[in-house]
């Protein structure tokens, strides 16, 4: 079965792994794009660099715009002021012109002469801060030149201070401000600029300006303003000719533009920052500078032009402003952008780092998961391996053990025998260990399945006890079992595993106990009855209080008188049990019905010993596999420490819980609960019958007195006797017993003649020697007793000398060696009472005789195509008393099994030509179900002996592959036996089947 199973298992593991991988591969976005992460980072940095550049540019542009605005506003402001100042001056000149025309021409004689004019102009100079000086030139025609020259006493001169050549007209200065007195008598018309100005001024009647030129006095750039003065009032809309005609002279003033602007700018804030140039742009191709240097450095990139209107429509002026310095680098913008970049860089890096970290963590996580899956697989594989290997080891080990057994039966020298025995012991130990490991592995692999079959708990406990009786007797230990009456006789559960648990616990106890007792108790786990009743009961039974002190030294109310670890389990609580039973016996049927109504029963099992106990440090790892209390334990007592862990697993599988109380050097008490199903009512009574067969019923109604100073031990004895159907009284000591026998209605309440008196060895030895039998004889002689009760001594171990003494003292009848078992007690009693015949119960552990009893008289059909096989199987079954018929094919078998037939079982080969075992079984089952249906049709006829056809069919097969077994069950077989018949194997298969038969029938 190994490889196949393993393969499929392996497959399932792989699938599981794959599935897990599948789900795990659901990567996150980050994980999926892990290769792109550095590129993402680079992209991020680039985008951020771009962004910060953009921010810088934007801020810089903002700055520039603001700068430009500042510049333009400053420039405009300057231009406006200049214009205002200029127009103020022009207005004054205008006023002066009117003054001249008024006082020079309208008055006759003229009210103004040079002196007056100079005086006046000097005093009103503050009104014209921009004009370096004003002068008045009179219009003189050539015809009037001589007259004029005569009148003024000087000749008209040109600008170059030469007598003026002859012209049509002249404009000699007659009045001048003191500051410009040097131009008096100069003909203004002689200068090209001035002449043009004069002509334009008298034509328009407005102030006109010359283009800038270097002024005569200072070397500043300046312009000359010319204003016409008219002789007479002009008509409202004079024509140019009229104006020219009316012109009397010209008032002129020189504007020192340079100092004007200088002055002006000096008054304003921010003067240093900007550079102002003023141009005359009348000739658009050639700008004449009026102020400032032509070639100035400064910020050439940015300039602002403002128009200037000085009131002369022919001339255009403009002011150009620019900053002194180039626009300073904008540090704010730069830092902002840089900081932004740095922050973004950092953010990017942090994100990148986080992503990398996530990737790493996820990678680690996946790795861990993979490792975990592998570890789990390894764990499963380990269990699998253990199971397989231990299974494989078992087979050859069986061979070794068998051979050793054979070897031991041959003629061997003592040394050889010793060696062989040692080898056998070792081999057995090894096989036990392997079985345990196998169990453990099975449990771990979850492959252990519990059976649910009805079994007798008491007989199992008896069996276990008998296993250890030899050892305990050798050690002088009291070994006893007590099962509460409330525990149902038959329970549903796994007897094998229950036995294993008990065997483990008792085995441990026996191993670690050198003195005292081991006591197994089973009772139903429920709340005990109130204490008071219990005490009353006990007093009735002879008083428990005196029993506490018997031999002077401290005694405990336990089985052997040694102290037990768990005090709760001592006599006090034990009383409850006994009492509860007593009450229950009295209780009405109702309660029984109620109790049985529940489906399951929880049992509390405790195994108490007075051994070395478990050291406190080791107590918490008692259930850990391969852990013993300490290393010295295994040296002194052997063992591997796996037993308890298996026990724990099994108990938990059975729905229970295990715990223990242990005191070093005092003892340990292991208690566990387990849940069993109750048997159904019908089957219960059914099995009761069969159980009654196990224990002889010949003792029913017999009366016995148990003489024992220790109540617990007495209760155990009583329990066993009760199981045989006997009425039991307990007497505390010999005296009471004797009196009980003697007088009716004595202290122990017995009104009956005992048939048997069982005396505990301790009680006998501690009591008066032999007085009991003497007294008995005495009684008989006195006619009180008609029949001498049988005297039986109960002992754990007894020396020959003691035995002789006992015989002499009247215990001639028999001595029962403990541990007590119902069947053994029955056998002894039978011997004593002379009911004769060996008991069937004796052979309980002997497989073949049991098999004989199981198979005896059964009609069995063997189906096999192989002649030899058929013969061998038939031979083997015949040996056990079965009546065997053979069929050589499936068809033949079918013919024989036509209903109704009288076969009790069928052994069927699987591989047969024509119709194989599976097919044959299927057909048989079909026939049966048809028959059953028909029978169900007329059920009202009343149930027959057999209400259902179901022939047990067991497969015979050479290969014991599990799959084959499953197939067997699937097609309706009940079990299988491996082919070369082995007694044990056969027994197991048949026993399981024939035992469960009543259940399946019901």
């Amino acid at each position, binding site marked *: 079965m190994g490889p196949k199973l393993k393969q499929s298992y392996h497959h399932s593991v792989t699938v599981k792994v794959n599935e897990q991988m599948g789900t795990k591969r659901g990567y996150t976005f980050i994980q999926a794009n892990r290769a792109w992460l550095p590129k993402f980072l680079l992209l991020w940095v680039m985008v951020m660099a771009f962004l910060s550049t953009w921010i810088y540019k934007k801020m810089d542009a903002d700055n520039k715009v603001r700068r430009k605005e500042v510049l333009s506003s400053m420039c405009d402001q300057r231009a406006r002021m200049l214009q205002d100042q200029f127009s103020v001056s022009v207005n004054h000149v205008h006023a002066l012109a009117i003054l001249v025309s008024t006082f020079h021409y309208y008055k006759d004689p003229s009210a103004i002469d040079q002196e007056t004019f100079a005086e006046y102009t000097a005093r009103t100079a503050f009104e014209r801060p921009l004009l370096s000086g004003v002068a008045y030139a009179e219009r003189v025609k050539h015809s009037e030149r001589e007259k004029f020259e005569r009148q003024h006493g000087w000749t008209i001169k040109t600008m170059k201070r030469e007598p003026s050549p002859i012209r049509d007209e002249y404009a000699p200065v007659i009045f001048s401000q003191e500051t410009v007195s040097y131009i008096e008598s100069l003909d203004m018309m002689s200068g090209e600029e001035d002449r043009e100005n004069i002509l334009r001024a008298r034509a328009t009647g407005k102030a006109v300006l010359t283009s800038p030129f270097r002024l005569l006095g200072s070397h500043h750039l300046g312009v000359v303003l010319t204003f016409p003065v008219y002789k007479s009032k002009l008509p409202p809309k004079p024509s140019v000719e009229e104006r020219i005609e009316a012109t009397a002279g010209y008032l002129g003033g020189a504007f020192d533009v340079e100092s004007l602007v200088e002055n002006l700018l000096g008054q304003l804030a921010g003067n240093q920052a900007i550079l102002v140039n003023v141009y005359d742009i009348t000739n658009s191709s050639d700008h004449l500078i009026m102020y400032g240097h032509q070639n100035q450095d400064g910020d050439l990139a940015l300039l602002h032009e403002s128009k200037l209107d000085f009131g002369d429509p022919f001339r255009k002026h403009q002011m150009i402003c620019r900053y002194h310095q180039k626009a300073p680098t904008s540090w704010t913008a730069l830092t902002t952008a840089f900081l932004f970049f740095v922050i973004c860089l950092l953010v990017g890096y942090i994100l990148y780092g986080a992503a990398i970290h996530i990737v790493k963590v996820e990678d680690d996580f996946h790795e861990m998961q993979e490792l975990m899956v592998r570890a789990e697989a390894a764990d499963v594989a380990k269990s699998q391996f253990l199971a397989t290997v231990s299974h494989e080891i078992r087979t050859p080990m069986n061979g070794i053990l*068998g051979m050793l057994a*054979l070897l031991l*039966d*041959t003629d061997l020298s003592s040394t050889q025998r010793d060696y062989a025995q040692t080898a056998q012991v070792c081999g057995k130990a090894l096989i036990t260990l392997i079985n345990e490991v196998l169990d453990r592995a099975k449990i771990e692999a979850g492959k252990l399945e519990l059976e649910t079959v009805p079994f007798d708990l008491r007989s199992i406990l008896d069996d276990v006890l008998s296993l250890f009786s030899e050892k305990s007797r050798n050690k002088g230990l009291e070994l006893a079992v007590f099962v509460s009456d409330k525990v149902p006789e038959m329970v549903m559960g796994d007897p094998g595993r229950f036995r294993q648990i008990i065997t483990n616990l008792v085995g441990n106890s026996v191993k670690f106990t050198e003195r005292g007792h081991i006591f197994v108790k089973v009772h139903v786990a429920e709340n005990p009855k109130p204490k008071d009743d219990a005490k009353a009961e006990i007093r009735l039974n002879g008083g428990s209080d005196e029993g506490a002190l018997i031999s002077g030294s401290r005694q405990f109310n336990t089985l052997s008188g040694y102290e037990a670890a768990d005090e709760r389990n001592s006599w006090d609580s034990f009383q409850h049990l006994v009492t509860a039973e007593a009450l229950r016996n009295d209780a009405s049927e109702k309660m029984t019905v109620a109790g049985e109504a529940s489906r399951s029963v929880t049992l509390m099992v405790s195994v108490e010993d007075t051994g070395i106990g478990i050291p406190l440090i080791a107590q918490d790892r008692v259930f850990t596999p391969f852990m013993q209390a300490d290393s010295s334990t295994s040296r002194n007592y052997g063992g591997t420490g796996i037993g308890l862990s298996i026990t724990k697993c099994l108990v938990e599988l059975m729905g229970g819980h295990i715990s223990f109380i242990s005191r070093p050097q005092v003892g340990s008490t292991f208690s566990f609960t387990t849940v069993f199903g109750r048997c159904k009512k019908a089957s219960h009574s059914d099995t009761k019958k069969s159980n009654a067969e196990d224990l002889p019923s010949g003792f029913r109604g017999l009366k016995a007195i148990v003489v024992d100073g220790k109540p617990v031990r007495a209760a155990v004895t009583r329990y066993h006797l009760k199981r045989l159907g006997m009425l039991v009284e307990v007497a505390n000591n010999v005296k009471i017993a004797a009196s009980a026998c003697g007088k009716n209605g004595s202290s122990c309440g017995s009104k009956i003649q005992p048939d048997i008196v069982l005396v505990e060895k301790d009680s006998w030895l501690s009591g008066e020697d032999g007085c009991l039998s003497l007294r008995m004889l005495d009684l008989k002689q006195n006619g009180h007793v008609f029949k001498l009760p049988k005297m039986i001594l109960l002992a754990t171990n007894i020396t020959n000398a003691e035995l002789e003494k006992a015989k002499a003292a009247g215990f001639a009848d028999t001595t029962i060696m403990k541990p007590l078992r119902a069947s053994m007690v029955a056998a002894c009693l039978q011997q004593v009472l002379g009911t004769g015949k060996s008991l069937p119960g004796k052979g309980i552990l002997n497989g073949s005789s049991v098999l004989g009893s199981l198979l005896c008289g059964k009609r069995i059909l063997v189906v096999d*195509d*192989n*002649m*030899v*096989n058929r*013969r*061998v199987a038939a*031979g*083997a079954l*015949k*040996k056990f008393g079965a009546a065997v018929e053979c069929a050589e094919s499936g068809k033949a078998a079918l013919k024989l099994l036509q209903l109704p037939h009288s076969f009790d079982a069928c052994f069927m080969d699987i*591989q047969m*030509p024509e119709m194989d075992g599976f097919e044959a079984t299927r057909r048989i089952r079909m026939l049966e179900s048809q028959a059953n249906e028909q029978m169900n049709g007329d059920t009202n006829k009343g149930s027959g002996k057999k209400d259902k056809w179901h022939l047990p069919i067991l497969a015979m097969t*050479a290969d014991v592959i599990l799959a084959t077994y499953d197939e067997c069950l699937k097609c309706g077989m009940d079990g299988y036996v491996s*082919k*070369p*018949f*082995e007694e044990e194997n056969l027994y197991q298969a048949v026993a399981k089947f024939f035992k469960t038969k009543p259940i399946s029938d019901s």
Partner: protein
Amino acid sequence: MDVVNQLQRQFLDYSASLHREGFLDDQFTQLQKLQDENSPDFVVEVASLFFEDCEKLINNMARALEQQGVDFKQVDASVHQLKGSSSSIGAMRVKNVCIAFRSFCEAQNREGCLRCLQQVTHEYSLLKNKLQTLFRLEQQILAAGGSVPAIE
């Protein structure tokens, strides 16, 4: 009595040698255990059944293998039968050859099958001789008034 003892020892030695040489295994011992007053000739009966069976099967197989197109299924069925019988009687060596035989059948290897057939025939006749000797010894013991010693 001396003769009986001697015969008994001879019988034991012989059967031990049969076990040792692997002709027989535990199953044969089991068979011997099954023999009791009720069926005194059980082992002999089973053995003769086995021999008959063997001869028949060997003939079957030989015939099948001689044919042009060998029907390996048929051969395999026969080998399976033979294996079953031999393991039932505890004829270990025959059984072991059968195991090899079956693998050749599965591989449809005619050469191997023929070789195995030869081996089986050989083993079978050997075993037959040996068992007949054993039974003869038994008879002699019984004739001399002794009882056949139980084999452990």
